[in-house]
């Protein structure tokens, strides 16, 4: 497909739940439904108007088998709909929906993601995504692996503990005005969880959901005053084994950004906002370096994953936050990033643009 023949596809609506430590009173579909209704009512669409529905979640988080099929009750899957699911962050569900729209198989798409970490221990749960032969039997938890990465960065002279604390403080300060964030405003850095990472360097554990609506061409203009056009999107994966990777760098993020056009001078305007999915403070350092972001780029004005990290939805929320910033005119060209796997193993980058003002 040539660039000129490509359809224009935009994020036209975004909603997220309040992110909280636990939601015992809600099943996953009960948690999800309000955000589905929010994006539908924002666009005036009904479930039957949606051309394609795609979701991201993982049953391991809450220990509920086939929970994504239960969640389908919330989208009104009768009469039958065109639907798909990815067992990873909803950002990858958005990628699938984007391709569906690009290929002309649908004009609108509903993308949603949810994660309930409260019923289990997310640190233990995430060990089950590791290589089952050499890693999983040792139960290295998500904080431990992130801490190995943080130490490598400190040893390489790319950051230090005060700099990491500053990232944590800036993120929570930025989240102070965010109505949905779980950690809002200043808080102590706390003790070491796994050194060199302290409580403040780690994301909150919580439950939450998010949804976006995508639309193509004139449909997008009809549904949204200032659509956030997806001018490029790409995702890349690195070797599974941590010991073969340079943990201080993220070549997959850089490549995904290049392929999504983030650095194209022909765009005529630079990226002004970056929503980076960095659950741990040190990962923001890795991503900023990999993307060569200058100080003129506003990073995570939403507070990022350090303020709310509903696993499986936090990456989709980065795309949604970037799009919402374009919708309200606070950004003209934004980069959104999502990650999955240990130590930034998989990375997705999208570039979103608003119409010139």
């Amino acid at each position: 497909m040539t660039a000129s023949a490509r359809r224009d596809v935009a994020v036209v609506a975004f909603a997220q739940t309040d992110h909280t430590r636990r939601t015992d009173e809600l099943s996953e579909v009960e948690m999800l439904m309000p955000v589905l209704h929010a994006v539908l009512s924002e666009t005036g669409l009904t479930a039957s108007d949606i051309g394609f529905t795609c979701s991201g979640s993982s049953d391991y988080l809450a220990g509920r088998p086939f929970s994504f099929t239960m969640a389908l009750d919330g989208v009104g899957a009768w009469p039958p709909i065109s639907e798909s699911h990815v067992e990873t962050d909803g950002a990858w569900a958005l990628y699938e929906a984007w391709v569906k729209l690009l290929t002309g198989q649908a004009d609108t798409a509903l993308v949603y993601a949810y994660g309930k970490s409260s019923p289990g221990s997310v640190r233990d749960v995430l060990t089950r995504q590791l290589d089952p032969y050499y890693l999983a039997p040792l139960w290295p938890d998500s904080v431990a692996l992130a801490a190995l990465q943080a130490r490598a960065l400190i040893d390489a002279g790319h950051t230090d503990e005060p700099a990491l604390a500053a990232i944590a403080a800036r993120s929570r300060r930025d989240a102070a005005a965010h109505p949905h964030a779980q950690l809002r405003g200043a808080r102590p850095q706390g003790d070491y969880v796994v050194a060199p990472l302290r409580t403040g360097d780690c994301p909150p554990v919580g439950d939450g959901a998010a949804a976006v609506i995508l639309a193509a061409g004139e449909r997008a203009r009809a549904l949204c005053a200032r659509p956030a056009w997806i001018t490029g999107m790409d995702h890349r994966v690195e070797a599974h084994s941590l010991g073969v990777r340079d943990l201080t760098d993220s070549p997959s993020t850089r490549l995904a950004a290049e392929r999504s056009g983030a650095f194209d001078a022909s765009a005529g305007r630079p990226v002004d906002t970056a929503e980076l999915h960095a659950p741990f403070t040190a990962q923001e350092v890795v991503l900023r370096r990999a993307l060569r972001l200058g100080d003129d780029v506003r990073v995570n004005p939403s507070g990022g994953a350090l303020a709310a990290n509903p696993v499986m939805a936090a990456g989709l929320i980065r795309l949604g936050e970037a799009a919402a910033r374009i919708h309200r005119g606070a950004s003209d060209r934004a980069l959104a990033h999502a990650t999955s796997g240990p130590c930034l193993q998989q990375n997705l980058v999208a570039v979103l643009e608003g119409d010139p003002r």
Partner: protein
Amino acid sequence: MTAVPKTLRAPLVVEFPFTRSLGPVQSAFLTGLRERTLLGVRTEAGRVLVPPVEYDPETAAELRDLVEVDATGTVTTWAWNPEPRPGQPLATPFAWVLVRLDGADTALLHALDAPGPDAVRTGLRVRVRWAAERHGAITDIACFEPYESTAPRTRPRPHDGRFDAPVTGIVAPARLDYTYSPGRAQTAYLHALAERRTVGERCPSCAKVYVPPRGACPTCGVATTEQVEVGPRGTVTTFCIVNIKAKNLDIEVPYVYAHIALDGAALALHGRIAGIPYDQVRMGLRVEPVWSEDGRYPDHYRPSGEPDADYDTYKELL
């Protein structure tokens, strides 16, 4: 206005022993651990990968060129773990480490037994501490320990990867502990069952009553809110005769398993039919629940004695 019932909670354990087969390279590596031999694999570019993989992470070329490396190495990065979690290699505070074994070009993740974080640094020299009992698993390395030595480091030596009684598979037990809470709609359903009542929820849009309620109408995609008591009697809409006895089930075969549309419900539940010879169960049979002494749901349904329901009354619920 009824009081909001207390949210139910119960422990839930998800546990499975994954049985995995090993390819030639992983088999040699894990068998080697059992024999206190550390193997890596050499790539076409000459790099030695430890732990070894079967395909080159950069070129995807098949790798079979095994080499033996030393049980000593260097810490490339580390993290101090003050509170070990269940299943981790050591129960006392330890350092997670990536260790590049002497002769290897890549690093292996494991635990380092050290008195405290001050005793650990990147570049620290360490050696393998073998587990007392070894079975051919990554846990045959109990952990690493600090080891200062002036002994010369040897080069990787070719190894044919052959051992007596090679390990060809591993069983990877995985246990995750949860606290299950069923959400608002199912909590209400379970509370009602405890009183031997069955409640569904009505969709505000299409007016269908869903049972058991899950909080959403799958047709309209909206929250179901209004609680509606259904049953206790119902109609068999369809059924099957089970002829094979399930393991650990003390119900004699043959028995009948049926879909039962409780009066007032818009979809059928399933349940066992008893109190009637299996070959006399039929569509349209009217049934009522039979609760066991301390049961939290009907043990089975039996004929209620009413005349059969007319097909038209349940044809939409098939």
